[in-house]
């Protein structure tokens, strides 16, 4: 087995992410660490979205809801004086899983464009409900005065927190990779290409897709719990529908064909945002048409480009 450019790029990306704190230590650029902690957390959310979007063919436009639910689980418990991560995080995961179960059970009765609109509408419902709860800040959001407590593991240390996020991201990528290559994943991918046929050969595709939807939602909730700890603040804006759009952009930009693709997408989009906003205040006027061009001319995203890339002449991979 030769090393393909695609695999090499993936290894290089994760190596760079692992070594980033050393670079930050050397240059003292604290902002870079904050930026990349955010990138790693949103990459985790994008990887979880790709499980249903890319592999399952379920075009969910409500994935930011889990960021909000996971984040608010941490925020609300902290507000009530419960700061142990061993309580906060399981609650965040369970709440996201439950929400995914309910909206998934309803939304998966439909497909295609209905599914897009319904997941969007339910996510907005969650947004309005949370924005309406005055006890937890309503529209203004909720400040979290203490990060989740994990005994000896001090999440307030930025480097430690970065590595926790990165470890969870790598675990998630591995989990998604194992999942899509398992029998379960085969059924999910089969249902994406031809659901009628999968049903005809005896798979209850609805149940498989629902389980897949709940797993993705739960992982999204994990990203939410991390994001709340990172910002030490959570507000309904976290789960606004444009955030769901951002996550879809990361997935498509990175490439839906591989488990690690969305990580490329998250890094590319957020670094691009950072660069463009340094050039002009009106950076979205550039980003918007750029997205349209990517849709029109670069299908398959970064992962697609890497997969198509070949080593120079004379190093042909054996069949």
């Amino acid at each position, binding site marked *: 087995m030769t090393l393909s450019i695609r695999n090499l790029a993936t290894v290089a990306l994760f190596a760079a992410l692992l070594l980033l704190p050393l670079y930050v230590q050397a240059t003292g650029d604290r902002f870079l660490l904050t930026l990349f902690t955010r990138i790693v957390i949103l990459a985790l959310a994008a990887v979880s979205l790709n499980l249903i*979007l890319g592999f399952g063919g379920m*075009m969910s*436009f409500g994935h930011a809801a889990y960021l909000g639910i996971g984040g608010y689980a941490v925020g609300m418990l902290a507000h009530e004086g419960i700061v142990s991560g061993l309580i906060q995080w399981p609650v965040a995961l369970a709440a996201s899983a439950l929400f995914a179960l309910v909206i998934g059970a*309803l*939304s998966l*009765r*439909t497909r*295609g*464009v*209905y599914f*897009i*609109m*319904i997941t*969007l*509408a*339910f996510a*907005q*419902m969650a947004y*309005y*409900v*949370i924005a*309406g*709860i*005055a*006890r937890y800040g309503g529209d203004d959001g909720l400040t979290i005065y203490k990060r989740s407590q994990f005994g000896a593991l001090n999440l307030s240390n930025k480097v430690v927190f970065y590595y926790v996020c990165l470890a969870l991201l790598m675990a998630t990528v591995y989990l998604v990779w194992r999942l899509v290559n398992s029998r379960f994943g085969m059924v999910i991918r089969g249902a994406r290409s031809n659901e009628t046929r999968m049903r005809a050969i005896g798979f209850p595709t609805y149940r498989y897709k629902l389980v897949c939807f709940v797993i993705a939602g739960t992982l999204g909730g994990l990203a939410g719990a991390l994001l709340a700890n990172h910002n030490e603040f959570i507000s309904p804006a976290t789960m606004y*529908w*444009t955030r769901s*759009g951002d996550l*879809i*952009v990361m997935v*498509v930009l990175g490439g839906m064909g591989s488990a690690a693709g969305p990580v490329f997408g998250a890094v590319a989009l957020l670094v691009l945002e950072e660069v463009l906003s340094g050039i002009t205040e*009106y*950076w*979205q*006027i550039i*980003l*918007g*048409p*750029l*997205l*349209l061009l*990517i*849709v*029109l001319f670069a*299908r398959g995203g970064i992962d697609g480009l890497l997969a198509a890339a070949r080593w120079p002449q004379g190093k042909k991979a054996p069949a």
Partner: protein
Amino acid sequence: MTLFIEQCLNGLQFGLLLFLLAAGLTLVFGIMDLVNLAHGSLYMIGAYFAATFAAWTGSFVLGAILAFFATLLVGMAVEVIAMRRLYGRDHLDHVLGTFGLILFFDEAVRLIWGPDGMSLPLPSWLNTAATIAPGFSYSAYKLAIIAVTLAVAGGLYLLVMRTRIGMLIRAGASNREMVGALGVNIKLLYTLVFGLGAALAGLAGLMQAPILTVQIGMGENILILAFVITVIGGIGSIRGSFIAALFVGFVDTLGRSFFPDILRAVLSPAAAATLAPALSSMLIYLLMAIVLIVKPEGLFSAGGR
């Protein structure tokens, strides 16, 4: 009782306004099979145009008419420049491409009109209360909105069901290759349909402008409601979106004004005050969930899609 009638009229007005948005959305989806997230941006642009033109010309009506046609032109330009290239692509591509357009439009508006909102003042002859029955009066402007939207809905029905263009639109919806093969300029037809959808969205935006502030992102919340309506009414069905829009308009308006009172009767005042804002904003989504459980394809699905 007066309050109830007033809220019913509010619901009717809001529902009809939502219909204008949902009709454009469902028309474009039914005929071009295109999911247009940027529909809300056209609503916003209609409102900004109206505020600008009204200030220039000094006349509300003239400003509104100019804004309607300007939005039509913007819609047709967007179709020619961007949308045309998205037909026949995956729905996910539509979502992403039009999401890019939203970012573009929001930022373009910020660049041209600045980050602060605008207001569109009503002329004095509309800014009064009309006495409908002895002892009961209602905003003349809202009555005007109801009249205009009903006229537009009727006109749309006549256009689609009774004219040659409408015949082509319906034919294009059921089999676009065949219509093209028969020598109809399908490209032009699509540009016109998209422009029409845009103009309807712009009309909704400019009529809502005097009631709310004209601001960036104003199209986004209402777009979600338009989605809910298309889902309930069945995608591609104009009749379905008309009924669903009225339904959503009533449920949302009446829910927001009377649901807190109902809650207060059942729960303690403190609990009701906490829960009411959250629960009343959930009502229409619950409605949507119920429709989905009963009829997953919507109430009046145009079939097949």
